[in-house]
Structure formats: C-alpha cells, structure tokens
C-alpha cells in the first residue's frame, strides 16, 4: 500500500477511535446520571443531539474509508450512509415532544447500526441497497412497536396469543427450517432466508412480561413452562446459542417476577441436568463444541474461523487497518459470527470494545430506568431485552475469540442479517415503551401515563418537567413509602402524595442540567 493511503487510514482510524471513545464516555455519563436518578439530566435532548452528531461524524469517517478502499462501490455506499444518517436524524426529530426522556437507547442502537453499515459496506459492498431497506424496515418495526406499546395497556392485552405465536413460530421453524451449520433455524422464502427466532424474541419478551403486573405464583409457573417450551424448541433446532439467550432472559424475568432465588437455582439446575442428559445421550452435540479452548491446535480445521478472527483482530491494532481493507471479511460468517473481530480489524479494537461497552451501558440504563418507567411490565421487558442483547454479545464476541463455545449467535445491531436487525430494533421498543417524561407516580401500571403536553415545544417541556421526574426517580425519597407496602398491589395511589414535596427541592438541579 502506498504511504499516503497508509497515513490516511492511520489518521482516520485514530479519529474513529477517538470518536467512539468520546461517544462511549458521554453515554457513560448519561448512565451515571440515570443511576443517580438524575432524570433531569437524562431528558436534555440537546446533549443527546451532540452525541448523535458525533455518531454521525463517526459514520461519515467510516464512509470515507470505505470510499477510498472501494471507489467502485461509491454509489451504493453513499446511498446507504445517506439513508442511515437520514434515518437517525429523522428519528431524533420525530421523537421530539413525544414524552420520551432523552434519546439514549436509540443513540446506542444507531451507533451500533452504523458500525453494522460499515460491516456491510466491506463484506457485501453490492448489498448496500438491501442493507438500507432492512434498516428502514427495522426503524419501522421500532416505530410500530413503540406506538403500539405506548398506546396499549400491555397488562391486559394479548400475552397468551403472543406466547402461543412464539411457540408456534418456533415449532414451524423446526419442521420447515433449513439447516445451516448444524442449526435448523432458517426459513427460506423464495431466494432469501430469515431466522424466525430473532423475531420470536420480541414475542417472548412481550408474552413473558405482559401479564406480570398480576403477580401470582401461578403466572410465574406458566411463564416457566412457556420458557421451557421455547428453549426446548430452540435446542431441538440445534440453535444452542439462541436457546441460551432465551434461558438467560428467562432467569432475569423470572427473578424480577417472583423474587425467588430458589426458583432461579432450580431453573439453572434443571437446565444443567438437561444439558448433561443431552450430552451423554447424544455425544455428537458436544462434539460440535469440541474445539472450544483448543482452536490453535486445529487452525485449518475446527478452529479455522476463530483462529482467523483472533489473527485479524490482533492485526488491526487499536485503530484498525481501515474500513474495506481487511481480509477477515472473506472468511465464512465474518460479518455475523466473527463480526467483533471484523470490526476490530478494520475500524480498530477501540471502536469494537466501545460497541460492547455501549451495550453494557444500555443494560445499566435499563436497570436504572425504574424511576422513569410507569409499568413494571415494561421495566421487566426492558431488562429482559438488554439481557438478550448482552447474552448474544457475550456468545458472539467470546465465542469468536475462543473464550466461550462458538455458537454462531449475532452481535446485536452490528451483525449483518435482516431478521437480527429487525429483532434488535423491535426489542429496543420495550426499553422505551414505558418511559415517560411526565411520570407522576411510580407504580405497577395503575397510573396512566400523561400524554405529551405540548408537541410544539417539547424541549422546553422536558426541562420544565424535569423536576417532577427527578423526584419520582430519586431512590431515597421514593424508597421509603414503597417499602412500607406489604405487596405491590396498589401502591400508586398512596405513593404519589408522599412524594409530592420532593419536586420543589430538586427543581434547581433540573434547570442546571
């Protein structure tokens, strides 16, 4: 490579890493604010606007690198990134005045999706139109989900049909599905394929959390049985990675619903016994993972992909070799199963690690969102969604690097693949569904959300009402009245008045932020 190009990739690579780190730091501060219950700060959209600007800049730089690497695909790249940018700013503007605090979850999703565009740009440069269409579908999915969830009372609608649908889709996949590398989890429609299990995740979260405001022992048991069916069907497909993702999400939701540690231990023990049974009865299942931890002993056979992933990752260094210049993209499944290494190789280790850190931050955001979410169902669904994201991330990243068995699970938002992208954006809606700027009471779904007050002046209303949410989110004040409640049956009415004095105290904070 001539020295000018080397220098170009070097400097743009450093800029990419700098931007990724900066974005991550800004997001970390947002989450710290969320952890403190400082919702006032969360709801300042200007702050998130600046971060989105950095995200866009990051995407423009990857576009620039891709254009230099493959000028012959310039038209597709320009179109793809134009759609990407238009989508994220469109979303940002459309959400204005919609009673949503900040832009944080979308911000992270857009950053990761942008990285996914870079992955698509290098691995399938001819497919940018398709990628753009998938992206628009995913955004539509998010919008539809969000509108539906926000305007319906989840607690009373459809958990049973959703659950039945989830199980049915998995069963149909098991019967009709195509087997790709040991996992019968693909459905072929004409000449394109998709993975129904990605979309079943949405149904599962919906069905699993919708009825949870009716906290009863029986509903937890039903949920457990339903989860066992889903996980079992996935395992029958041979899609053990996704099965594990569902199982981990089950653990989180089940614990949130029941608060029962014995139940969790029992579930883990039962799953462990099932795995032991399968491994002893069908040793070939274990053989699929026999190279785990030994990939360097068989770099041309079973360890082929992982060895190359690790090599390319190390070759990329912290700042990457430049989008479009890598070689890992030619290895099978590089843009899905090995995507962490592909991103490391081309964009750098720092952006790749930032992708993982951002998902961790998203999880923390969901956990700390109790004060902004009016319904326990949405809260649990949000926590379930981030658990699925992170379980996938762990299996994807550590599987490709030989720290975990290589299961072929996608990296949320980043891995190439339509069903995955749709599923991830769909799940994101759960994180946003229950969030309200005007949350006046913390409860278990009793209090109806306030409608956005004035759409024309969303920003102002955000700042002005910040005080209200701050109070409800502030744990010290919120904790005491709730703790006195024996069950969570009808706390809303009583907690609300108890908190009323608080807003005035913290009002100044909201203004400062």
């Amino acid at each position, binding site marked *: 490579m001539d020295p000018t190009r080397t220098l170009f990739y070097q400097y743009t690579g450093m800029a990419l890493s700098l931007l990724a780190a900066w974005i991550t730091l800004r997001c970390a501060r947002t989450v710290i604010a969320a952890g403190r219950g400082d919702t006032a700060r969360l709801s300042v959209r200007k702050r998130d606007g600046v971060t989105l600007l950095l995200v866009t800049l990051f995407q423009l730089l990857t576009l620039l690198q891709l254009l230099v690497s493959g000028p012959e695909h310039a038209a597709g790249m320009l179109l793809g990134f134009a759609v990407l940018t238009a989508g994220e700013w469109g979303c940002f503007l459309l959400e204005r005045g919609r009673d949503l605090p900040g832009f944080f979850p979308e911000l992270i999703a857009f950053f990761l999706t942008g990285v996914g565009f870079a992955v698509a740009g290098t691995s399938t440069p001819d497919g940018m139109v398709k990628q753009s269409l998938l992206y628009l579908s995913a955004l539509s999915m998010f919008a539809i989900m969000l509108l539906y969830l926000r305007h319906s009372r989840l607690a009373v609608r459809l958990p049973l049909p959703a659950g039945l649908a989830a199980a049915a889709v998995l069963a149909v996949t098991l019967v009709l599905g195509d087997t790709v590398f040991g996992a019968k989890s693909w459905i072929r429609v004409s000449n394109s394929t998709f993975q129904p299990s990605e979309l079943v995740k949405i149904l599962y979260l919906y069905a699993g959390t919708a009825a949870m405001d009716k906290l009863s022992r029986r509903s937890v048991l039903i949920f457990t049985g339903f989860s066992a069916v889903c996980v079992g069907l996935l395992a029958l497909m041979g899609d053990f990675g996704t099965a594990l993702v569902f199982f981990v999400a089950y653990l989180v939701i089940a614990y949130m619903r029941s608060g029962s540690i014995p139940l969790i231990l029992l579930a883990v023990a039962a799953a462990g016994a099932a795995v032991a049974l399968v491994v002893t009865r069908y040793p070939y299942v274990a053989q699929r993972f026999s190279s785990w931890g030994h990939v360097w002993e068989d*770099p041309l056979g079973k360890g082929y992909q992982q060895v190359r992933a*690790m090599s*390319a*990752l*190390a070759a990329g260094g912290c*700042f990457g*070799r430049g989008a479009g210049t890598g070689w890992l993209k030619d290895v099978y499944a590089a843009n899905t199963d090995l995507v962490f290494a592909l991103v490391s190789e081309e964009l750098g280790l720092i952006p790749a690690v930032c992708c993982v850190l951002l998902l961790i931050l998203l999880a923390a955001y969901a956990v700390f969102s109790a004060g902004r979410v009016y319904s326990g169902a949405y809260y649990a669904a949000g926590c379930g969604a*981030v658990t699925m994201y992170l379980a996938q991330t762990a299996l994807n990243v550590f599987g490709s690097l030989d720290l975990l068995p290589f299961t072929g699970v996608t990296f949320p938002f980043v891995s190439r693949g339509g069903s995955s992208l749709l599923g991830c954006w769909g799940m994101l809606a759960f994180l946003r569904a229950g969030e309200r700027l005007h949350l006046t009471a913390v409860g*278990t779904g009793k209090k109806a959300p306030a409608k956005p007050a004035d759409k024309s002046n969303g920003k102002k209303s955000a700042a002005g009402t910040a005080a209200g949410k701050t109070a409800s989110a502030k744990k010290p004040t919120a904790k005491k009245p709730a703790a006195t409640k024996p069950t*969570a049956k009808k706390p809303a009415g009583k907690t609300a008045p108890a908190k009323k004095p608080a807003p005035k105290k913290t009002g100044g904070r909201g203004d400062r932020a």
Partner: protein
Amino acid sequence: MNKLSRRALIALVLPLLVLSGLGIFLSRLALHGREWATYSANEHIYTAGVLHSGTLTDRNGVVLATASGGDYTYADEEAVRFASLHAVGDHRGNVDLTAMELYADKLAGYDLIEGTSGAGETVALSLDSRLQAGAWYALNGRPGAVVVMNYKTGEILCMVSSPSYDPAVGPRTSADGYYINRVTSAGYIPGSVFKLVTLAAAREHIPDLESRVFTCDGSVEYYGEPVNCTGVHGEQTIEQAFANSCNVAFAKLAVELGGQTIYETARKLGVVGALPYAGGATNPGRFDVAARGTTPEAWSGIGQYNDLVTPYAMARLCAGVANGGVVREGTLLAGDKGREKRIMDADTAEYLGACMNYNVVYSYGKNNFPYLDLCAKTGTAELGDGTTHAWFVGYLRSGPPLAFAVILEQGGGGLIAAGGVANHVLQLANGYYAS
C-alpha cells in the same frame, strides 16, 4: 416498583460478566496478540503464507534477506546465500524454523497499539556472514552441518546446513533433505561424541572414577556378544580412555552405570529431548534404554545402538561445559541473551573441560589447531554399512567464547574431516573476534 428495581439488579450480573470477559480477552490479547497477528493467515503481512516486508541482517549489518511489498532479495554474496538458507529462510517457505518464521512477529512490526502496520522492521541476527561463508566453503559441498555459538550469551554466530540452494534462485532439485536444517532438525548417530554424556554420568555416579584403571584388549563381551574397540589400548586412566575414545572402557562404564542413568544424564544435558532454540524447538534426539548388562546397553553408552542427537544439542552441551555448567539457550538475535539453565555441576563441567583439553593436547595434536586454546571431542559414528559420520565438537577455553559442533555425513574420520572444517571456521572466528 422499588422491590422490582431491587430485583432488577440481577440484570446487572450479565453486564458485569461481559465486562470481566472483556478484561480476560484484553489480557489474552496483550499476552498472545503477537502470536495471533503473525499467524500466516494474516494477509496484512503475508501473501500465501510468506511475509511481505522486513529485513534480516547479520550481526554486522550485512543484509541477509529483505522483503518489500512482496519482492524478496537476499545477501549479495552467493556463498552467504547458500550458507544462510536454513537459518534465515526462503520466501517460498520451504524450510522450517527459520529466522524469517521465528522472528516474523518482529519483522512484521507488530505492536498492541498499531497492530501489524505492514511497514516491516529490520532485525539483526546473531549470525556472522563471514563465518557463514567460511563454513560453507569449508564444507565444500559435502552434506553436513556447522554450528558455532557464543557460550556466554547463547548467540548463534554460524549455522550452516549442507546441501543447500540459493534462495534467490530457488531449489533446482527436490532431492531429499534440502529443506532440513541439519543443525537443529536432524538427528544423527553421535558415535564417540556421546562419550561426553557417559563421562559426565560416570563422574557424577562413580566416586573412584579417577583412580581406576581401564584395561582394553580390543574388545569386551556381554552374553557372548563382543563390543569391539578401534584398537588395543592396554591399561589406561579414564582421561586416557576418553582421549583414546576407547570403546571397551566406555562399554564397561555404560554397563556399570546402566542405560537408565545414562538416559537421565543425557536428558539433563539436553542431548535427548527437544531444546528451546530461538523461540522454536529442536528435534528431540533419541536414547533407548536397553536391557541391563547387554551389548546394546554398552553400545548405547558409546553413542551407537539407537542413539540420535542434533548438532545443536552437542554444541549446547559443549557450551555448558565451557560456561561452568550453565548454558544460555541458543538465540539467533544479535545482542540477545538466551535463557540461563544449569545442566551440570560446575565441578563436572570443569572435569569434562579438562578431559576435552587433554584430548587435544595428547591425542588430536595442538598443532592441528594453531592459535586455538581448544577443548574438543571427536566422533566417528558407524552407520553399519561401513561408512561413518565424522563429528567434531568442543569449545575455545580462551579467546572468543565459542562452542561448536561440526558433522560431515558419511564424512570419514572425525578428527581429519570434521576437525578440519571446525579448524577453518574457528581460525576465522578467532581472527575476527580476538580481543
């Protein structure tokens, strides 16, 4: 909701696990990133498994091989190219464990921050191209190997394996053994040079060794099978028996010590077992423990039977003797110091050294090695078909701190054939490195 938000903390377990997983991965990257990045699939620095860029020079800056954007050039001097093929390597990747391969990580210019930028680095090897050429000329086309190492640092100054070809041209024939570095990757029957091992074992296990008298009538029998000697040496001390390379005396020692003891000593001395060398490992050699009190056991202590050693292992053993029982593992990097390892007591080392010097003074003839303060052992290893490998191993007791091993395949007598090659190379080295 408060209860719920407390329960929700369980959803932070997985993020924390992922975070610690990232930590583990990053530490693994810091530890192994160099190995990963220099794996030959990395097309940023390799084309079809061959490094794109980087320069290897000898210890004085003479270019031995250089690659730039996939073009490869080698040393200017033809003899150096032939001589250095096995140590330096060939861009066709024909030879194993070459500097090109062993130091690919350094040549590629990997670091944790930059990854493999492909710019290529210059790596100075410990080889001296003048000694390489000298050894090549001295071998004069005969199959064999020469290795010379600095016993104070482990730096390998000369490593030549013959037959060879010009890496700039490529192999003209696919004849057997062209691609093997005979110094490190070939196991040879050691013959009498193995008596160094038996002598070391005897020194450590037989207290009255030096007061004994060994009588040689030309042969000794075990279960009716004879072990023949090269002559009739009569009554000898152990030093004399060693200098005479008396098979009868060493057969008796071998049977008295037992194969197991000799094997353990051989392992300790590194004559058997793969040795670390320049980040790679040598051929492990071989020593089979034979039945007690039989001729195979006797022969195994004389370096026959199934014994196999590499020239490198013999040079390293001599380096240990020279350096008071402590070796520096071999390295091909200029200015590098190999890892230290004690392979024998200082007392044993001193004793072996004295015996090896005695050999030169009373048996081989100092005049055959003018100006050299030499300690050495010859070997004439019988192949069973009437031909013999010629061995000559040893070190310089004063002057430049060099240990060496020379072998000529089916080259005749150790002293005349191999000793001549050794003398030629050592004279050059003594001239270049006399301080």
